Each structure stands twice: as structure tokens, then as C-alpha cells.
């Protein structure tokens, strides 16, 4: 199971402050105690959090790939996880290759956000989500069926 490192945890806990001090090139430090020293720590913790987030997100990759590979061709979109805090895949359904879509996991504002994106706006996204939910329901049904069979 993926674990969250201590610097990432700190970053998530102090999301607003770390975002303003670590992400901005020239942060406004008025009111910050011992700004130089504090900023040095912010950068060290921020750098470590970026490394930890990359390891954390990487742990999701095999599961996502395995899930979509059963119905589609899955291609990892290479990006710098440490900078982007986002894991991304391009998914091409085997039966309808023209209906390509992207899925991913982002860490944003302390929320781990699984997302899905399709050309065509919300309607297309809803359709894909519905298909995924349908597949999940079918899998759940098959699991129950197998369980009931086994009980007999």
C-alpha cells in the first residue's frame, strides 16, 4: 500500500502556506518570522514533499494500467511527477479507438483526485464515467455470483 512521507504530510497540512511560500518565485514574506531561515526550511521540505509525492503517485500506476488494459490500450503520459503532482494515462478503447480519453490522479489542495477527461465536454465525460460504473457493477455482480456459486 502506498504511504505518505512526512514532508508530504506536512505540505498537505500547511497547504496554503506552503503553496504561497514554496510555489511562488518571490513570495510575500511580510509577517513571516526569520524569513530567510524559514524559507530555507520551506524549500527543503517542499523539495522532499515533491519527491515523496512522486513515489506516492507512482504506486497507483500499476493498478490503473491493469484496470484499463482489460478493455483498452493504455499509454502512460510521461510527465514530471515531482513538478506536476499528477499521474496521467491516455486510454484508447479497443472497440472504438476514435473515442480516446485520458485518466489520471492528481494531488491538489490536500485532495487525492481521480479524474477523467474526454474531448466533447461534460457529456462525453459522463458517458465514460457511466461506462466505468457499469463495468464496476458488472464486476461486483460477477463476484457475488461466484461467491454464491462457491457457497452452494
Amino acid at each position, binding site marked *: 500500500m502506498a504511504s505518505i512521507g512526512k*514532508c508530504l504530510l506536512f505540505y498537505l497540512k500547511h497547504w496554503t502556506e506552503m503553496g504561497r511560500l514554496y510555489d511562488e518565485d518571490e513570495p510575500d514574506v511580510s509577517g513571516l518570522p526569520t524569513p530567510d531561515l524559514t524559507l530555507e*526550511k520551506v524549500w*527543503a521540505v517542499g523539495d522532499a514533499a515533491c519527491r515523496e509525492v512522486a513515489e506516492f503517485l507512482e504506486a497507483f500506476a500499476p493498478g490503473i494500467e491493469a484496470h484499463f488494459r482489460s478493455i483498452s490500450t493504455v499509454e502512460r503520459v510521461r510527465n514530471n511527477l515531482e513538478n506536476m503532482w499528477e499521474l496521467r494515462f491516455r486510454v484508447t478503447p479497443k472497440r472504438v479507438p476514435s473515442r480516446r480519453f485520458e485518466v489520471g490522479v492528481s494531488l491538489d489542495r490536500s485532495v487525492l483526485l481521480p479524474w477523467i477527461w474526454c474531448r466533447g465536454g461534460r457529456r462525453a465525460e459522463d458517458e465514460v464515467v457511466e461506462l466505468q460504473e457499469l463495468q464496476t457493477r458488472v464486476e461486483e455482480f460477477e463476484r457475488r455470483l461466484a461467491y454464491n456459486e462457491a457457497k452452494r
Partner: protein
Amino acid sequence: MTAPPVPAGFLADLELVCPTRTTAVADTFLADLEAVYPDARASARQQQEVAVADLVSLGEALTVWREHNRRLLADYLARLPADDPLLNPVSLFGTLDYGRLETAHTRALAWLLGDREHGFGFRLLEALLTHTLGGAVAVRVGRVESEVVARSHHGTAGRLDVLAEGRLIGDAGERSWVLVIEGKIDAGEGEDQLARYDEWVDRRPPADHTVRVFLTPDGREPDTSTEPWQALSFLTLAAVLRRAAAALRDRPGYHFLCYYLTGVLRDVCEVPVPVSADGPNPYAAVEYLRSVFPQAETEGGDGEHR
């Protein structure tokens, strides 16, 4: 001690970006890679370790910083009128789920800047020009339009979000000006988008002052022009309009302006509106209010009282 093997996942990725079928790879490449891999891996793992004590002291410093900003915010909030956009829960476009719709914002901005039924005259446009030109100006306005079709000489057309033009009135007589605004919220610039607008602006009759404004949530610089576009954040725009709004309370469009500003602050700038001093993010509101009331940084400053 033997070097750890190159992970299979890495080799699979390498095959993806550099397929052996189609790319000439030196025979020794993998062996070379294997030789440097342990050092690179060890070096990556020896990145500066952060001690728990450092995390504790940093956490304390950030808490002090947050409390400082909360106190500042409380001081500012005490100076705001009850109907201030920062205290208002209703966002103009948020009610339609169009809170970050670019065209809604830029069309509303063009409407506010022009002399329309809101009754502001050109007060907001004057305030924006004063901000972008860096000093108080008296202006005569010829026209303010939104979604202006700007066609390059290649025939490629784009729609400039806001175009305004007129004359500055000063001691040295009247001088012409043109203001163009291109706003972006979630989208990026199109290919050579601003360069195409530059070309269109350059083909128009020359103005003494050409003010190009690139309006974005974070005030970023544009990528597609070499001309001097002024990067303006929506937060700064809101502060400029809010300062001017103080003198417009009796005009028919005042409440529309307040709802518009609430939407800009909440939906575009992500300020937690309605703001309270004990909220988790006092910083953006303090930054905005510092700009609205530049003279009232500390207790006892002259603010705009309820």
C-alpha cells in the same frame, strides 16, 4: 557488493520512448546505463533529509505567519461596508455555474468599462487606465467594445476580448490611446494569439499610447508576443475596480458590480468569499485589501468605514 539491476519497468519505459526496433542504440548503451545507475540512485536517495525538529519549528513559524495575517485581515474587515464584495456570498456568474467562464467575465468587464446603463460613465475605465499608465489620467473615450474580430494579414481571425480607444486630456493637449485586453482563465493562449493581435493593432491608425493588458488569474506573463503586454491579475483588477466602486454606491449598476467582483474574487481568484478572519486562507484577501486600501496597512489607518 553487486549493483542493483536496472528495474524492468524502467527498461519498458525506455523501450517506449526509444524503441530498439527503430532507433540505433550503441551495443554498450545498456551496460553503460547499468554502470551509472547505482551512483545516480544513491545520489537521489542522499537528498537532504528533513529532520522532524525542522518540521516542528517550520510548523510553528507558519502558524505565527497565519495568525499575523488573520489579525491583519480582521483589521481590514472591520473597515469594510456590510455590502462589500468580499463579504457577499453571491457570485454573479457562479449562480449560473459559469464562475470561470472566460467570455462571461470579459464581456461583463467590457460592459462595466463602457458608458452603459449602469450609470458609472467611464469611471471604471479611467481607474483601469490610471492603473496601467501609472498615474491619474483624464480621458475622453471614443468606444469600448468586446469580442472584436481581429484579422491578421494572413486572414486568420481572432476575437480580442476588449478594445477601447479615446484621447487623454493633459496640459500638453490631447493624446490618443488604445487599450486592448485579452483575458484567460483556464485556457492557454492559442498559437501566436497575441502576436496576431499585435499585428492587427499595428495595422490600425497609430495611437500615442497603446496599452496591451493580459489578464489572468495569477498575473502571468504571456508567451505569444514580444510586444509589451502588461500582465494583470484578476485580483489586481478587482482591487482597481473596488477602489473606484466606493464612489459609485448611488448608481444603478452598483450591486451588479459588487456581484461581479464577488465572482472574480471567489471563482477566479479562489478567495474564500465571504471572508472571515479565522478562515484557513487569509493571505489572498489580505493581498487584495492591501491593494484596495494601500494607506491602511496597520491599525489606525484610514479605511472605508461601515
